Structure formats: C-alpha cells, structure tokens
C-alpha cells in the first residue's frame, strides 16, 4: 500500500493491536478524535474504548500509567501529543521505565512504547518544535528510535511494540505527510538498533535521521558528491558498526541533526568514530546541527533548522581538507 509516515504509523498500530490483545493505546485525544495528527484514527472504532483510551491531561499519568500496565503484563503504546510535553513525564522514564528490569534483576520489565511527534518547521507554538533525542538517549535503559520513512515508521513501530524494553519512538512530524512510498501490508518489522544505508558512496559518510534526512539527501543530490548516506534510525542503542564501517571506507564524515549541538547525538557519533576509526579519518568530522538555543518562535524558526545549503556547506568543508 502507499502510505505517508503518519498513515504508516496508523497502520502499524492497527496491526499491533489486532495481533496482540494486550496492546493498549493511551494518550490525550487519541480515541474519540483519533489524535491531533490522526495517527490513532479508527483504533477506538476497531478495538473499543477499553483498549484505546483518552486520558486526562497528564503526561505523568500517561507515561507512569503505561509503566504500570507494562509491568503488569500489558503492552501499552502511549502517545505524548508533542514531544515538548514529555518533560513532566521524564521523571517516570528516568525513575522507573528505564530501570525496572535492572532494579528487579530481570523479574519485572517494561515493554512499553512512548510515541511522540518531534521537531520543528510546522509553524506551531512554543514547546511544539524541539528535538531532544540527545537528552533521551542519555538515559541508560531507554531505546530511542526515530524513523524517517513510511516503511520504517511501520516496521520500527511494530518492532518497538514487541520489544521487551521501553522504546521512545520519536516521529518526525514535519514530514508526517510530505511524501508517500510503498509500505508492505500486514505484519512487517524493521530491526531496532540497525542503521540503514540509504545511498552507497566512497567520498564522504553523511549520518542523519528523522526529519533531517530530507535536507541531507537534498544537499547530497545538489552537490552530486559520491556520498554514503546513513539513516541512523535508532539513536540508542546506536549502530556503531555501520557508521564506523562506512567511515573506514570514506575517511570523511558529516553528522546532521536538528537538536542542539552541545551534548547532541552528533557528539556521540564523533566520539565513536574517534574510538574505532580515528586513523582512517582524513578530515575532522563535521557537525551540522541546531544551535544551543531553544527553537525560536515560529517567525524565526527557519533560522534555527539545518537546511540543504547548511548541510552542503558541511559536506564541502570535510571534502576540502
């Protein structure tokens, strides 16, 4: 079937709930109205309002409640309406979700998914634009997944629902509906913790994920360079092997991300290259990132977001050394 990212997510939720009656969907406005982005459309009609639940306005109750359901044996898929509203529930992720398996020495576990649209460029209000995957990937015990295509959105979400550990599933809302592709029908999973090589090349490795794949691909096409483009797909645990393997081949690397630069995932990618492939490098690894500021209010947000010319500048810089 042809699907956008958001319809692929919707399809994955239908598939997951049909396959396992212990999958429960909860969040603000997910049932009656089908979600503010329509990601949960039709679930209530198909699976009923015991398994598809409109919650009170409380991110703590949503995430903490999901932790409890998961510990008890259910497979909750919680929706946070925008990732900017996760912070109140960060406590539940840090304090419980991420460490219950560890705390109980394997007796209890938290097989839950927290889905949330993230990222800028949609002309929204404050707290509707951030990309804090760097902060979330810093929490031991969490998996952080960021799809960039409809096919991955479906396959990775299905894998996340079946994953034995908590997965934070960050959805690039800017490209929710910007393109369609063929997505397989039925129950298909894509592996978590495996990056995807989107384009093979010899000259430079360009690593990105989520909504930044678009400007990254556009920049590579515009420059016409023989770049190897890697879509990280899972931020934590990171597929170091694919990145390092590629850098060993190309000797040059650019990392592109939307979140702030300092302490961002790009820094971690650079560190891993340093650990495993330093001697292969012919140029310092370049980072094209958001600035160390909150995403500006919508009138100025385009100044913040990495765009194709900014990515192209980064690529040219590493190629010029």
């Amino acid at each position, binding site marked *: 079937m042809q699907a956008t990212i958001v319809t692929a997510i919707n399809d994955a939720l239908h598939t997951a709930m049909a396959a396992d009656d212990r999958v429960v969907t909860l969040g603000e406005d997910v049932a009656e109205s*089908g979600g503010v982005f329509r990601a949960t459309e039709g679930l209530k009609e198909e699976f009923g309002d015991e398994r598809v639940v409109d*919650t009170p306005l409380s991110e703590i109750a949503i995430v903490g409640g999901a932790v409890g359901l998961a510990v008890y044996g259910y497979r909750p898929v919680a929706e946070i309406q925008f990732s900017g509203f996760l912070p109140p529930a960060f406590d539940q992720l840090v304090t419980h979700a991420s460490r219950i398996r560890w705390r109980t020495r394997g007796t209890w576990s938290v097989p839950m998914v927290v889905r949330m649209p993230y990222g800028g460029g949609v002309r929204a209000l404050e707290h509707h634009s951030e990309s804090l995957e760097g902060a979330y990937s810093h929490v031991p015990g969490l998996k952080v997944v960021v799809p960039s295509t409809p096919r991955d959105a479906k396959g990775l979400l299905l894998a996340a629902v079946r994953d034995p550990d908590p997965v934070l599933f960050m959805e690039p809302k800017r490209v929710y509906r910007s393109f369609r592709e063929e997505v397989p029908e039925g129950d298909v999973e894509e592996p978590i913790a495996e990056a995807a090589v989107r384009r093979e090349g010899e000259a430079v490795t360009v690593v990105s994920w989520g909504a930044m794949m678009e400007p990254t691909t556009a920049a590579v096409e515009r420059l016409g360079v023989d770049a190897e483009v890697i879509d990280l797909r899972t931020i934590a645990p990171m597929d170091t092997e694919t990145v390092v393997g590629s850098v060993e081949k190309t000797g040059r690397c650019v990392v592109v991300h939307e979140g702030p630069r300092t302490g961002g995932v790009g820094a971690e990618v650079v560190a891993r290259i340093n650990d495993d492939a330093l001697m292969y490098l012919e140029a310092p690894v370049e980072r094209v990132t958001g600035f160390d500021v909150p995403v500006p209010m919508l009138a100025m947000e385009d100044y913040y977001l990495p765009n194709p010319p900014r990515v192209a*500048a980064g690529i040219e810089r590493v190629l010029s050394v």
Partner: protein
Amino acid sequence: MAEREPSESPTGPQAGRISQADIEVGRARIVRPDGSHDADAVPDLDDQQLQDLYRWMVLERTFDERMVSLQRRGELGTYASGRGQEASIVGSGYALEGDDWLLGTGREAAAMLLRGVSIRDLVLFWRGVGDAAKFMAEENAMIAISIGSQLPMTTGAAWGMALDDAESVVAAYFGDGATSTGTFHEALNFAGVLGVPAVFFCQNNQYAISTPFEKQTRAGTLAQRAVGYGIEGIRVDGNDVLAVYEAMREARALARGGTPAFVESVTYRMDAHTTSDDPTRYRDESEVEEWERRDPIDRYEAFLRSKGLFGEVDREGIVEEVEAEFRAGLEAADDYPEGDVEAVFEYLYAELPPNLEEQLAAFEALLEERPEINDYIERRPKG
C-alpha cells in the same frame, strides 16, 4: 495554629468517611439567563463600569472573530478563540488591579488587554514573534503553552509578593484540562501551606481539545478540590459576567488576606479548540446550540436593559470602535520589524557565552557566504 481535628469530631466504625455524595457545591450566579437578577447581589459598580463590562465582552468577541479570520488568511500561526467565554474572561480580568500578575494559558485575550497588554502584542504572539512575550512580561503577564506548567511559579511569585507585603496578587489562568496535571496539585498545595496571595482561576469550558470534562475527572466539580488543599473554592456561572467579577473580587480579597483561592468558572468553548481543530469529530452540534442559547453577551444585554442602562449602549458603535482598535493593532503588528539572526541567540543568558558567540559568528559568516540559505527562511506571515 488552628486545631486540625476538633475533639468533638466524631469517631467510631462509621465515622471518617467522606464521599462525593456529601459534596454539593452549587454555582454562584447573579444574573439569570433571562437577565433577571437579585438587585442586592449586583456588585458595587457604577453605571459607567457596568456598561464598560459590556464593551469588553464585545471586544473579546470581535477580537476572536478577527483573529480566527486572520488565521484563515494565513496571517497567524494558530489561534485559540475565547468565543462563549467572554463573561468568564472579562469578569475575571476586570477584577484584577494595579500590579497584579497574570500567568495565563492563551485563552484570555481581554484579560490580557485589561492588564495593559496591547492588541498588537497579542497579534504578534500568535504570529510567533518572540518579542510579544517580552511586552507581555513588561505588563506582568505571561502565556504558558505547556499546560499547567505556570502553576507552581504562580505560588512562588505570590510568595515573593507576600514577603514584600505587596498589595498585589498573582492570578493564574488555565483550563479544566490543566487541573489534571501534577503541577496543579503541587502548586495549590504549596500555596495553601504558605498562605500566599495566589488566585487560581480555572475556565472550565467543558473540553480539553476533544476530551470532555467527564473524562478529565470523576469528581463532580473542580471547585471542591480546594477543600483538599485547605484553601477557598468558588464555583461560579462563567457565563454571568457579574458573578465572575464578584467571585474574582472575593478570591482576590481572600488571597490578599493569606488564603489562596481557586475559582472554577463554568462556561463553554463555542469555537474549535484552536484554528487547527475540527470539533465535529467529537461533539454534537446540538450541544453547541444549547450553549448558544446561554450566550453571555445576550444575557448581560438583557440585564443592562432591565436596569435601563442599555439605552445609551450602542452595540454597533462599540463594534466599529473595537474594529478600528483592532485594525490599528494589526497595522502596528504588520509594521513590527523582522528579527535578525542575533535574535535567535539573544536573551538565553544575561551574557552570551562563548559557544553561542561562536555559533552566531559562524552562522553569520555562512549566511554571507551562502545567501541561498535565505531561500529556506520564510518571512513571517503578515497582512
């Protein structure tokens, strides 16, 4: 300290129960839907002020209509209309005074204007111009987009006022949905413990986006929550501007006296949640029509007529006046200068730290070197 448990409080196997069924809160009301009223209950406002309240409600309605149509024309990002909530917004805002603070949620335009915020700045806010919040702050006002997040700081700022023996209060404005957040509980509890001049003003407009009040809480009312914190609660008919005004006056006085107050203003959101929402997905038109019949402006007009005060009121004249004010505000917003790159980095810290200085300089250099970056920078919406 007051004794918590009087010695005559009953004990025994059946004692110690408290139930929803014991609680009957009611709703403060001064003007009945047909405009009739109890003359003694009318607040102590002169004729001019009574007419002024009407003008403010018409302003709120006109402002909301204009803003919604601006958004439709692509001149705003989004907008949260207060249509149907005019009495709640105006009655409460009119009761605030002097240096009172207003920490709001976005659905209280006229209350912001009453605090001294300009129409221009409200337009700029919904256009996503960062400076709007600066001008609001200069009037002791702020809009918190993360629901419920401003409530603990309401307690804290009120604490500061108490320490300073200030004459003012902090009024937090929020919706029914916000009462489900953890911060709501923590803020009201702390305010009660401290005894600070905080007024928690909740516009219960029956919905949090698509989520109806019944899914927000099993409690019959929100006002009853106040009891759990040992503070004062008032539940008021939010479509009766005089009752809301009176409730807010009372709440303000209580807060000034060291007892924080929680006001539940029972009203209805007539428009969509925001311009991005489609309410036909979750509520019946018949429900909206029912509330249409309880229109707060019509009710107040009937009241003014019964007092013989409507003769001098010229609604069309008011609308014209308000529209002229709106046009002037809009023009001022259109003329407001575009920000430059520096604005992205400014104000995060008192002093720009080296990493930001570096990032700014590098970005400015890149903009010079690659002007095509500007093709990806859309100018903000304007008229």
